[in-house]
């Protein structure tokens, strides 16, 4: 049997490889030719080899309590230079706007005072971290790492599905996918100038260095992980190794006199910057969950004193709240004076009573998402849900409209994917990763293409039984071309460290 697209039936969505007339899209012609020259069992054999490599290297994801390799599909996803240029410009624009918003929301609140967005968006958000008010990022950066999820709609247009500016994960799969593909399916790459993805750790390390407390020139940086049982532990460990810095757990750290230390065999050693992969609420038991075993008591006050930088910053969750998502185009216009390069998916705010009534009445035709859900949790796809689920969802949105948004059901694009030895269409999305070092926002060429492996499934997430694809950005002029990954300058807003001033956010309320 030939691993071909002969029997491939395009689903009711935009297909990334096969055009509506059945022809192969130009970007994919060479890869499809290579795949055609392989026998079906060869491809299956390579796919098994990919899985084995991942198991050996421990590239696993904890799913349902079992450690399993994150399935890598052998058919790569390809993005051409011109489209990538537009896409990366669009995500950079978003990150810049969200940085400006976070800086403003935790200080002056101009965006609220000017009536651009309601103040209530943050004051009603459980992610609004009041303890973070007064913690000033030394180089003005709160989003060292962002993952902006993008999908392609029925007409082929790219749209942003959600922003992730707390602790976006998945970049390790981008690096490991490429490593596995070049070793196992090197033939596919021949003659293609695919932009490399292994620059990421150095970029991140640089961004963390730039974020060091004022006056620290050679900072000690550590990755803070919840521990080996965390689903993304592999990633924490990989990043620490590739950056050549320490991987620490909460129990390795201690605060004295508003300074952070790690416990080493030769005593306590200062830590200047932590790249934390622990959620806000568990970071400091003094200011969050007091029973947290994975945090460090006193960390917030050490950061407040300017002695340690927490990256990403505490409290970023107000920016990737899905209700805030609906206002991001407004933020782009207000803070950057630009028009959004990438559109949102049409989204309805349920706090508007008329909208709520309309959505509740026709709930089977919407996608309902919790505003703070991560990993696809709690998403209800109207047309695919049973009556019982729909009834429960209707009740939930009426009881707490602030907690949900409603979106149009988008048939997100499909991509041929190896399923039981044959190529079949599966829905995919893309998470490009951005790194902000305070001078510019850089986007890792490609990103993580996630595949919803169950047939017809529209929720694409590793924690929902998903897989992934190696994602290629094809260089314009040959390998090593950097023209399209040139960083876009970002307006850093370094602030003088405020010692003990009143919180201006609340100033108007104090009179």
């Amino acid at each position, binding site marked *: 049997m030939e691993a071909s697209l002969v029997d491939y039936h395009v689903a009711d969505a935009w297909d990334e490889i096969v055009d509506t007339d059945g022809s192969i899209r130009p970007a994919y012609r060479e890869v499809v030719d290579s795949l055609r020259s392989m026998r079906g069992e060869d491809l299956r054999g390579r796919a098994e080899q990919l899985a084995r490599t991942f198991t050996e290297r421990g590239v696993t994801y904890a799913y349902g309590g079992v450690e399993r390799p994150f399935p890598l599909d052998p058919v790569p996803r390809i993005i051409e230079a011109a489209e990538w240029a537009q896409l990366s410009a669009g995500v950079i624009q978003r990150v810049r706007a969200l940085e400006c918003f976070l800086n403003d929301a935790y200080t002056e609140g101009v965006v*609220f005072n000017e009536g651009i967005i*309601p*103040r*209530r968006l943050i*004051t*009603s958000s459980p992610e609004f971290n*009041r*303890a973070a*008010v*007064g913690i000033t990022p030394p180089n003005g950066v709160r989003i060292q790492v962002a993952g902006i999820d993008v999908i392609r709609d029925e007409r082929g247009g790219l749209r942003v599905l959600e922003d992730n500016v707390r602790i976006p994960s998945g970049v390790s799969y981008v690096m490991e996918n490429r490593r596995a593909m070049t070793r196992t399916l090197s033939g596919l790459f021949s003659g293609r100038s695919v932009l490399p993805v292994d620059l990421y750790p150095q970029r991140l390390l640089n961004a963390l260095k730039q974020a060091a407390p004022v006056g620290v020139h050679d900072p000690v940086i550590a990755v803070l992980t919840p521990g080996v049982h965390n689903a993304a532990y592999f990633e924490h460990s990989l990043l620490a190794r590739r950056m050549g810095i320490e991987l620490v757990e909460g129990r390795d750290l*201690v*605060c*004295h*006199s*508003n300074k952070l230390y790690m416990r080493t065999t030769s005593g306590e050693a200062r830590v200047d910057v932590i790249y934390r992969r622990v959620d806000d609420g568990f970071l400091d*038991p*003094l200011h969050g969950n*007091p029973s947290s075993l994975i945090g460090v*008591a*006193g960390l917030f*006050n050490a950061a*407040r*004193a300017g002695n340690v930088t927490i990256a990403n910053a505490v409290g970023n969750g107000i920016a990737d709240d899905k209700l805030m998502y609906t206002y991001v185009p407004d933020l782009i216009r207000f803070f950057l004076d630009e028009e959004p390069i990438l559109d949102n998916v049409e989204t309805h705010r349920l706090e508007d009573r008329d909208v709520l009534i309309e959505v509740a009445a026709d709930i089977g035709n919407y996608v309902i998402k919790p505003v703070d859900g991560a990993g696809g949790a709690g998403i209800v796809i109207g047309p695919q849900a049973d009556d019982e689920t729909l009834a429960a969802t209707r009740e939930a949105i009426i009881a707490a409209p602030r907690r949900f948004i409603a979106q149009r059901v988008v048939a997100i694009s499909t991509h041929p994917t190896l399923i039981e030895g044959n190529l079949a269409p599966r829905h995919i999305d893309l998470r490009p990763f951005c790194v902000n070092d305070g001078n510019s926002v850089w986007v890792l060429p490609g990103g993580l293409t996630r595949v919803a492996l169950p047939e017809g499934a529209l929720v694409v997430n590793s924690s929902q039984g998903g897989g992934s694809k190696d994602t290629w950005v094809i260089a314009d002029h040959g390998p090593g071309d950097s023209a399209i990954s040139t960083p876009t300058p970002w307006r850093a807003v370094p602030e003088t460290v405020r010692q*003990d*001033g*009143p*919180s201006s*956010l*609340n100033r*108007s*309320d*104090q*009179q």
Partner: protein
Amino acid sequence: MSTFFSGGWRLHIVHDTGFVYDGLAHGSYNEARLTPASLPTQAVLSTEVRAVPGAERWSYTDYWGTKVTTFQIDSPHESLRVTGESTVETSSARTPQGNLSCTALLDEAVVDRFYEYLAPTPRTLLPEEVRDAYAIPLLSDDPHASAAAVSERVRSLLTYAPGTTEVQTSAQEALDRGVGVCQDFSHLSIALLRSIGIPTRYVSGYLHPHEEAKVGETARGESHAWIEYYAGSWNALDPTSGAAVGARHVVVARGRDYADVTPLSGIYHGAPASGLGVTVAITRLR
């Protein structure tokens, strides 16, 4: 010699609190909110927060504008004693300020600005029936009258009885028991006023117990709580005593409810702790 504010008092306050452990406590991290606020109606002449065992102290101003003193005790210790000592000048009670009607308070701009003082917290959440029974009938278009009426209603619903409730007690629980202390009177008033659309906040501080206090005489005071509601300006009400908020009241902290103003909070590891009890000595100096 007079005070800054006509009709105001000068008060010296010593607030003692702490914990004793059934063994040794280690690595204790604490935050104290024991510093009176500097306000247009209140001047702080001197203030200090001390801890025993001794520790390096830092301070910052929190989101609500309250000065927080932080300290860490590394060495094992059997008890922790924290003292806040301040001299403050207060001012006499003011006539109600602000001329927004209750209808005007429902304006989207007001709701958006004061959302935090309108949304229920776990401690101030009441079912609709309670609101309908106790708050709605008192609602007029004048927020001052409505607030005064609600405050009075709370005094009829709760009997002042020290030791009957804890710091975690919610407005609903206090209402069910029919008893409480200043904290419960305040939470219930806040819950009712917010339920009818009047932005209301929790105030913690001190109250001199005697209306005709003699200068130089030290009284056994108390940590006290009252409320402030918004009617275009903020106005204070003391739902526990019904007395006007004035020269005898010292403001320390404000927030949505008790959780935002906790006088002393911290974490440590080691043996279980029990409170040392709180004493507040308050002396009128002028």
